[in-house]
C-alpha cells in the first residue's frame, strides 16, 4: 500500500468523518494564520482530499505556474520589443490587428485551459497574463504609430499607463488573480509617477516622501480591507498580498528618504511650483494620505463592529498604525510647507532625521513581525532587506566617525535585545497562566 493510500485510510477516506474534520480544521488553521493556503492544500492532498491531486502533482503544478508566468513575461517583453522596432512595411491597421489577434488568442486560450477545462491551470493563467501584457503593448504601439509625445498638452504618454491599469484591474478581480493585479498595480504606479514627473518635475524630496508615505498607507489599507473582506469572500483575500507588499515598499522607501539629512527648504528652482502655490495642487499631493485615513477608519470600524475574536485585535492595530503613518505623511507635508521659505532651524533638521531613522527601524521590525504573524515570507524578507539597506547606509554615513557610529549601533542593538527579552518574559508569563491540558483534551481530534 502506498504512503498516500495509507494516509487516506488513516484519515477515514475522502468522505469519512475524519476527512470532514481535517477539511474543517485546515480551513480554520488557514484563517487563523497558522498555515498558508498552499500548505493546507498539501495536507489535504496527502490524504487524497485535494481533487485527486497528490503532494507531488501539487508541487509540479506550482512549478508549472512559475515557469508559465516567467515564459509569459519573456514572450510579452519580446513582443513589446519587436513592436518597438517599428515595422514600416506593415500598414498601421494590420499591425494593430495582428496584436489584437494575439491578445484575444492568448486571453481565450488561457481562460479555456485555466478556468474552463482546468487541465493546465498554470499554463492557462500564464497565457491570460500574456494577454494583459499584449494589451499594454498594443496601447504603446498605437502611441508609437501616431508619434504621441511624453509631456504634451494632454499628457498622452502617461495616459497609456492609466488605460493599461484600468483595463487589467477588473480582470484581476473577475479572475481573482494576483498575477493580473501585479500587472495592474505596476501600470498604475507607472501612471502615477509619469504623471507626477510630468507635472512636478522639481518636487522636493521631503514632499515626495510625504506623498509616497501617504500612497503606501493607502495601498496597505486597501490590502487590509481585502484581508478583512476575505473571510466572507475568499476570492478577495488572494489579492491582499499584492496591495500590502507594494504599500509596504512605498512606506519603507518614504521613511528611508526621510532618514537622510534633508534641507526642509524649498529650492529656488521650485519657487513657483503650482502644487504648492495653489490649494488644488496641495490637495493633489495630500489626496492619497486623506484616502488612506478614510480607508483605515473604515477598516477600524469594520474590525470593531464585526469581529470580536482575539486575533482580530491585530487587524485593528494594523489599521491604527496605518492611520498614524498617514498622519505622519500629512505632518511632513505641513512641516515642509510651513518652513519652505526660511527653512527649518538646525536642531529641527537633526530631530527630523533622528525621527526618520527611529520610525524606519520601528516599521522594519513591524513589517518582519507582520510577516511572521501572517506567515508571509515575502513581508519578512522585505523587512529584513530594508533593515539591511538601512544599516549599511547609516554605516557608510558615519564611516568617518567610527566611535559615534559604533555607539549608535550598540545602543540600537541593546534596544532590540531588550525588546526580545521583554517579549520572551511576556511569553513565559502567558505560559504560566495556562493550565496544562488534560489527557481528554489532548484527544479532542477524532
Amino acid at each position, binding site marked *: 500500500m502506498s504512503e498516500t493510500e495509507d494516509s487516506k485510510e488513516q484519515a477515514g477516506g475522502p468522505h469519512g468523518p475524519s476527512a470532514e474534520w481535517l477539511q474543517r480544521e485546515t480551513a480554520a488553521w488557514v484563517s487563523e494564520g497558522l498555515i498558508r493556503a498552499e500548505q493546507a492544500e498539501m495536507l489535504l492532498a496527502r490524504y487524497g482530499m485535494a481533487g485527486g491531486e497528490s503532494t507531488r502533482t501539487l508541487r509540479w503544478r506550482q512549478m508549472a505556474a512559475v515557469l508559465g508566468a516567467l515564459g509569459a513575461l519573456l514572450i510579452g517583453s519580446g513582443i513589446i520589443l519587436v513592436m518597438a522596432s517599428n515595422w514600416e512595411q506593415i500598414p498601421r491597421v494590420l499591425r494593430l490587428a495582428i496584436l489584437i489577434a494575439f491578445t484575444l488568442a492568448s486571453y481565450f486560450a488561457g481562460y479555456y485551459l485555466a478556468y474552463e477545462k482546468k487541465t493546465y491551470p498554470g499554463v492557462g493563467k500564464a497565457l491570460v497574463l500574456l494577454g494583459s501584457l499584449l494589451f499594454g503593448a498594443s496601447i504603446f504601439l498605437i502611441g*508609437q504609430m501616431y508619434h504621441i509625445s511624453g*509631456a504634451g498638452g494632454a499628457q498622452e504618454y502617461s495616459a497609456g499607463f492609466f488605460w493599461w491599469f484600468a483595463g487589467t484591474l477588473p480582470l484581476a478581480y473577475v479572475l481573482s488573480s494576483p498575477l493580473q493585479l501585479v500587472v495592474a498595480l505596476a501600470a498604475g504606479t507607472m501612471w502615477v509617477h509619469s504623471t507626477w514627473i510630468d507635472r512636478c518635475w522639481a518636487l522636493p524630496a521631503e514632499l515626495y516622501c510625504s506623498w509616497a508615505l501617504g500612497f503606501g498607507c493607502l495601498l496597505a489599507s486597501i490590502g487590509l480591507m481585502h484581508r478583512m473582506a476575505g473571510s466572507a469572500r475568499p476570492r478577495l483575500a488572494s489579492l491582499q498580498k499584492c496591495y500590502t507588499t507594494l504599500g509596504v515598499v512605498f512606506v519603507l522607501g518614504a521613511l528611508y528618504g526621510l532618514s537622510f539629512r534633508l534641507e526642509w527648504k524649498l529650492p529656488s528652482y521650485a519657487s513657483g511650483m503650482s502644487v504648492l502655490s495653489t490649494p488644488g495642487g496641495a490637495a493633489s499631493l495630500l489626496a492619497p494620505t486623506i484616502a488612506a485615513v478614510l480607508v483605515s477608519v473604515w477598516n477600524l470600524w469594520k474590525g470593531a463592529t464585526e469581529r470580536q475574536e482575539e486575533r482580530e485585535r491585530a487587524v485593528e492595530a494594523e489599521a491604527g498604525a496605518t492611520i498614524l503613518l498617514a498622519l505622519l505623511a500629512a505632518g511632513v507635508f505641513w512641516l515642509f510647507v510651513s518652513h519652505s521659505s526660511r527653512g527649518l532651524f538646525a536642531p529641527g533638521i537633526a530631530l527630523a532625521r533622528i525621527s526618520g531613522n527611529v520610525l524606519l527601524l520601528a516599521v522594519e521590525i513591524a513589517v518582519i513581525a507582520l510577516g511572521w504573524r501572517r506567515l508571509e515570507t515575502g513581508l519578512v524578507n522585505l523587512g529584513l532587506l530594508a533593515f539591511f539597506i538601512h544599516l549599511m547606509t547609516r554605516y557608510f554615513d558615519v564611516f568617518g566617525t567610527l566611535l559615534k557610529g559604533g555607539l549608535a549601533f550598540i545602543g540600537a542593538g541593546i534596544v532590540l535585545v531588550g525588546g526580545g527579552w521583554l517579549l520572551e518574559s511576556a511569553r513565559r508569563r502567558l505560559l504560566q497562566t495556562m493550565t496544562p491540558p488534560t489527557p481528554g483534551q489532548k484527544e479532542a481530534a477524532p
Partner: protein
Amino acid sequence: MKKWFALIVGLQVLFLAGQMAHYEMRLASGETLRLRVVPYDPRSLMMGQYMNLQYDISRVNPGKVHGAPQARTDADDLTGRVLYAAMRPGAPAARAEGFWLDRMPPRKPGIVYLQGRIVWGHDAAMNVDYGLERYYIPERRTREAAELEKQLASASRKPVVTAEVAVDSRGRGLIRRVLVDGKPIGY
C-alpha cells in the same frame, strides 16, 4: 465569470480600436501646419527609437504671453499651465503671431491655434511641450536619422527640417510627417 471576462476583454479591444480611429480622424480632419524643428535621437524604453523634436516655438518669452498676470515676472509661476500658440501657416514653416495663456482666443481667419503645456521656465524664457516632441523611427532606419542629425550639426548649409502637423478644433496637434528641405523623409 466567463461573461465578465469576455466583457472586459471585449472592452479592451474596443478601446484599442477606438483609440486608433480617434487618431486617424484627427489626422484626416485637422488643419495643416508646418513647424520648424531641430531633431536628435535618444532612445525610449517603451517605444523604441525616436527623434526628439524641438520647435522654434518650444521656447517662449513669458513677457509675450497674453493673459499672464502682470505682477508675475518669474516664468516658474506658469509651470504646468496650458498655452496656445497662434500660428499663421506659411512656407517653409508657420510663423508664431502670439501666445495665449489658459484659453484659446476667438478664432481669426488664417490663424491656427496650437495647444501646449508650459513644462519648465526661468527668467526670460520658458519651455513649452506641444505633444509633438517625438517622431518614432523604424529600427533599421536609425542610421539614416543619425546621418540627418550629423548634417544638422556640421553642414555649412543646414537643411530646413519641418514637421507637418494636423491640428484639431481644440488645438491638439498630431504629427503627419517630417520634411527635410520640403521633401518628406521616407520613414
